[in-house]
């Protein structure tokens, strides 16, 4: 003990004398680390910081067929797919990959980690204190770039965008790098349609034994799996750069003349290749359709007396079952607060008051798209004021739905259209005028398609909440805050007054309820909506979007509800609406009644993602809206 105290006194004196130059400081840090046996406390202190850097190649001694030429159709053995997952996979037609917006789909994590090809791993370290900030993994196939944050930062909120690689944080625990990943896009568990939803989370355990790296991935997917999917990938260390890193992809025209609302899919029970796999390998037909039961020992013995009928029953939704409800997390925080998510170039998404709100700021007043339910308008106004000292000058409404116009009056009153004082309009305010025309210069100008006005007037909305600046046909333009803002009219999507708002410089689109990551589209037939118009509107948005890389990034899309998306999410949503419509249409063509369509569970592969059995917009209402729209 005496020796230690003496030593510490010497160290203290030494530190005082050394503090005068940088070299001394560095020495002190190193010495302290040496004597105390640890570096500065950090999130990775629980384990030892193993070196994963270098060049690695995936070793494909398992599932070779799946990972190289590609898996066989209806080979879902070893996956704990639930009914929705199995039906999604069976409905999947690989021709979907010829659609423009699917041609460059990247691999979602962890399929990316399982892919053929080369990998490079490198570290980011703080240049000043050498602490580990992040570990990067670059995968050659689909050019997947995975960042594993090691600096203890939190995961983004639920309304943040999803990516193919997701958001990963890691810690060294024991002899493993343990990684937790959220915010994944929808993708594949296997390249034959076996789905992994955008609600999946993944835990990786990366272990290194010499030149052999093993990544064990545990996928939890409440939408499509009944239990975690656990697989491992092996990588061999390479001595040098592979010089093979790129996987360039641009979409093009693969099938000419195809209608924009044609999404290749098989009807339930009609997957033409469902039996091909079992026939080829002389397996019981039902074996690969059993979900989690297929993963455990004794399968061959259990299926000795199985019949094809057991399998055929699994090619369609189980009859006489209630619809499943969504297992997805609703990104709406519901915490009584307004949360601001910067999108790009002074365009922001505000979350928390029902429908999403978009705000653009600049040298002129704020341009706002939609105003939420109006329950938290004071906080919305305060949030906008923190983004811009200028008043709210314009408010555009994407529809007349209450959760998008609820704050019109409050936000309008808090704003001012500074372009009006001294103008012709300011001098023309008649004393008998009502609403925003009463004194336009002291109120933000509300903009919408004229049908929004008609719907709001019919609903006896307060006059100061009703837009005064309307358009009648296909397009309205405004150059504001140095940016062209376009409103496009969709005549009959969720209502008959829908507008899509495109911020051209920031390349951000506010889609309103046409796109909703939390539920099936609210096709409001009473207010002029239709499934055909909804599909057209989704395709119209897709005609304006572009991806930055491998079907990701680029144009950002703010849904009416849910998380900030890009065209990948919108395409999956469009596919869903088209596929369900086609099923309903086929049943109508066969003479089915609405009751029969509902009993057939035509949404069974999507209900665990979007379905609801209670609340304002149920699965039954969605199916009924489609049926009634198509029957017209």
């Amino acid at each position, binding site marked *: 003990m005496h*020796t*230690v105290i*003496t*030593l510490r006194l*010497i*160290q203290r004196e*030494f530190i005082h*004398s*050394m503090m005068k*130059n940088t*070299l*001394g400081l560095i*020495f002190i840090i*190193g*010495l302290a680390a*040496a*004597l105390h*046996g640890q570096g500065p406390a950090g999130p990775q202190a*629980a*384990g*030892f910081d*193993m070196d994963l850097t270098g060049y690695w190649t995936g*070793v494909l*001694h*398992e*599932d*070779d*067929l799946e990972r190289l030429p590609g898996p066989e159709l209806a080979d879902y*053995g070893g996956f704990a797919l639930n009914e929705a997952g199995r039906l999604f996979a069976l409905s999947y037609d690989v021709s979907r990959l010829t659609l423009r917006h699917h041609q460059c789909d990247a691999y979602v994590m962890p399929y990316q980690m399982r892919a053929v090809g080369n990998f490079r791993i490198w570290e980011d370290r703080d240049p000043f204190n050498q602490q580990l900030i992040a570990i990067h993994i670059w995968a050659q196939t689909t050019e997947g770039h995975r960042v594993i944050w090691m600096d203890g930062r939190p995961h983004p909120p639920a309304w943040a965008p999803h990516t193919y690689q997701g958001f990963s944080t890691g810690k060294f*625990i*024991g*002899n*493993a790098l343990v990684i937790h990943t959220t915010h994944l896009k929808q993708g594949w568990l296997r390249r034959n349609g076996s789905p992994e939803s955008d609600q999946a989370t993944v*835990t990786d*355990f990366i*272990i290194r*034994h010499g030149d*052999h790296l*093993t990544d*064990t991935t*545990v996928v*939890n997917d409440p939408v499509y799996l009944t239990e*975690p*999917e*656990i*697989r*491992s*990938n*092996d990588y*061999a260390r390479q001595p040098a750069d592979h010089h093979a890193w790129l996987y360039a992809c641009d979409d093009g025209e693969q099938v000419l003349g195809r209608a924009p609302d044609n999404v290749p899919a098989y009807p339930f029970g009609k997957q033409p290749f469902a039996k091909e796999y079992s026939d080829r*390998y*002389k397996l019981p037909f039902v*074996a*690969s359709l059993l979900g989690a039961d*297929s*993963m*455990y*020992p*004794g*399968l061959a013995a259990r299926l000795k007396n199985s019949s094809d009928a057991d399998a055929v029953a699994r090619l369609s939704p189980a009859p006489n079952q209630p619809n499943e409800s969504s297992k997805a997390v609703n990104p709406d925080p519901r915490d009584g607060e307004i949360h601001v998510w910067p999108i790009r170039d002074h365009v922001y998404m505000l979350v928390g008051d029902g429908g999403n709100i978009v705000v653009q700021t600049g040298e002129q007043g704020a341009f706002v798209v939609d105003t939420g339910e109006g329950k938290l308008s004071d906080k919305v106004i305060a949030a906008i004021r923190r983004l811009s000292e200028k008043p709210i000058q314009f408010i555009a409404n994407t529809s007349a739905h209450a959760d998008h116009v609820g704050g019109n009056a409050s936000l309008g009153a808090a704003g001012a259209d500074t372009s009006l004082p001294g103008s012709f309009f300011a001098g023309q305010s008649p004393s008998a005028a009502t609403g925003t025309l009463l004194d336009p210069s002291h109120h933000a100008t509300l903009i919408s398609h004229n049908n929004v006005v008609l719907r709001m007037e019919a609903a006896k909305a307060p006059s100061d909440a009703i837009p005064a600046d309307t358009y009648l046909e296909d397009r309205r333009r405004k150059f504001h805050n140095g940016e062209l803002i376009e409103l496009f009219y969709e005549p009959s999507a969720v209502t008959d007054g829908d507008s899509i708002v495109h911020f051209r410089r920031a390349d951000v689109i506010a889609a309103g309820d046409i796109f909703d990551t939390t539920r099936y589209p609210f096709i409001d037939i009473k207010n002029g909506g239709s499934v055909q118009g909804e599909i057209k509107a989704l395709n119209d948005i897709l005609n304006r979007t572009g991806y930055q890389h491998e079907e990701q990034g680029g144009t950002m899309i703010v849904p009416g509800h849910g998380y900030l998306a890009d065209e990948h999410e919108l395409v999956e949503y469009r596919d869903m609406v088209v596929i369900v419509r086609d099923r309903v249409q086929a049943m109508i063509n066969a003479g089915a009644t609405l009751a029969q369509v509902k009993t057939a569970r035509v949404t069974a592969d999507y209900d665990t993602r979007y379905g609801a059995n209670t609340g304002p917009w149920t699965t039954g209402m969605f199916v009924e809206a489609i049926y009634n729209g198509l029957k017209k």
Partner: protein
Amino acid sequence: MTRTPVFAVALLVLAAGAPQLFAQGRGGRGGPPPGPPPTPRAAARIDITGYWVSLITEDWRHRQFTPPKGDYLSVPLSEAGRRAADAWDPAKDDAAGEQCKAYGAAGLMRIPGRLHITWQDDNTLKLEADAGTQTRLFHFAGPEPAGGDWQGASMASWDYPRPPIQGFFGGFGPPPPGGSLRVVTTKMRPGYFRKNGVPYSAQTVMTEYFDRFDVPGGDTILLVTTEVNDPQYLSQPFWTTTHFKKQNDAAGWNPTPCTR
């Protein structure tokens, strides 16, 4: 202050601290005096004992069902290996009393079933598989067994992360945490990687790492990472990873004879 006095003081301080620094390499500061090394059982940093059930999520078809003859997809067979696999004759195996050729050490872990892992003694870990009613013994000490049977001779060690090499600055910390069980198996009776006669020879050397993970949701997973080298039948090392899920009890434990 010039640099010369700085380094002089630095060396002085290091010299004063040297006994402490070097002591860490012999068991750490203030620790008890060195005693006899702990037994392998006491030295275990991970506990893999208990009942485990296979999770057949990879090579599903090849593992759950006997593949057709000549189906050696994914296995890096040499030309001799392919010839042997193509010549597979199950009737011949039966006649020779070799029904357990797929249940040898290099194939056993891939066969769906349950494991029961216990300490036979302080130096020997016993792994029983209900599939084929096989037993593997992992010897941490003592002479290497003679082998020659399906399970061969397995020598075990705890594979801990290598302690840092002590340098002038750093490398003096506690040993890294965590570790794996490393098992090297040789002297196996020739057998099959798969039930359809994909062969390995008597010259096979198999290195396995057993790791244990606690996964979200409460399950515990045993990961067996395997590298097989066979100069006769493989063209390169054959790598697989096999997963087992921890069971609380012996539920489902069902010793069965070797089958095709």
